[in-house]
C-alpha cells in the first residue's frame, strides 16, 4: 500500500540554523500539507500546497518557514533560522484531488529538536 515517507526521522539542530524537512507524498496525490505537534499538545495545521503554490497558511507559518516541491516527488519544509520553540514533531500529509472529500494520509513525522 502506498504511503507517505519523511526524512529524517529525527533532526537535531542549533538555534539559528536552517533545517529542511523532506517528505515524499503518495505519487498520485495533488494536495500537500504540513502539520506540527509540540510535545504534549494538539496537532496544528501549518500550510497547504496545491498546484505549486501555497493555498493556505496558518499564523504559525511566518516568514521563517517556506515550502517547496522541487522535483515533482519531494515536498519540503524549510525553517530558515530555527528557534527553541520550533522543537516539535512535523508531519507531512497528502491527499487526492477534490471534490468530494479527500482523506489525508500522514507520514511518520520528523522530530525536530532545536538546542
Amino acid at each position: 500500500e502506498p504511503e507517505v515517507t519523511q526524512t529524517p526521522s529525527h533532526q537535531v539542530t542549533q538555534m539559528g540554523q536552517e533545517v529542511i524537512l523532506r517528505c515524499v507524498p503518495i505519487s498520485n496525490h495533488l494536495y500537500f500539507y504540513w502539520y506540527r505537534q509540540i510535545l504534549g499538545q494538539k496537532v496544528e495545521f501549518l500550510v497547504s500546497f496545491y498546484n505549486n503554490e501555497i493555498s493556505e497558511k496558518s499564523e504559525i507559518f511566518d516568514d521563517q518557514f517556506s515550502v517547496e516541491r522541487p522535483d515533482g516527488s519531494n515536498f519540503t519544509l524549510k525553517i530558515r533560522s530555527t528557534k527553541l520553540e520550533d522543537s516539535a514533531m512535523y508531519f507531512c500529509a497528502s491527499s487526492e484531488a477534490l471534490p468530494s472529500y479527500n482523506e489525508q494520509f500522514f507520514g511518520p513525522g520528523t522530530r525536530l529538536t532545536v538546542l
Partner: protein
Amino acid sequence: AQTVTQSQPEMSVQEAETVTLSCTYDTSESNYYLFWYKQPPSRQMILVIRQEAYKQQNATENRFSVNFQKAAKSFSLKISDSQLGDTAMYFCAFMTNYGGATNKLIFGTGTLLAVQP
C-alpha cells in the same frame, strides 16, 4: 473559527471491553466532515473512521463506530471488543467541506487510550 474539544485526556479499558471517547466541536458551517485518527506509539497517524455531516447514519468500521449528534455538535467514538493494539492517542478532527483547495484538518487535543490486558 472552528474548534474541536476532547475532554478526556486519558482513558483506560480492559481488553475485550467497550470504551467511548468523547468529542465536541463548534462550527457555523453546515457541510463538513469529522474524523477520528489514531496515533500509535510509533506516531504515524492513521484514519480510523470518518463521518459526513449530511449523512444521518452513523459511520461504522468493524469494531469502531461513531455516535454523531449534529444538533449537539457531538461526535463520539465507540471501540468494541478492545484489543491491546488499540492502545494509542486518538484525535478527533474537523474539516470544512467548501470545495476549496485547503481542506485543512482541525484537531482536538487527543485522548490517550490504554488497553489493559
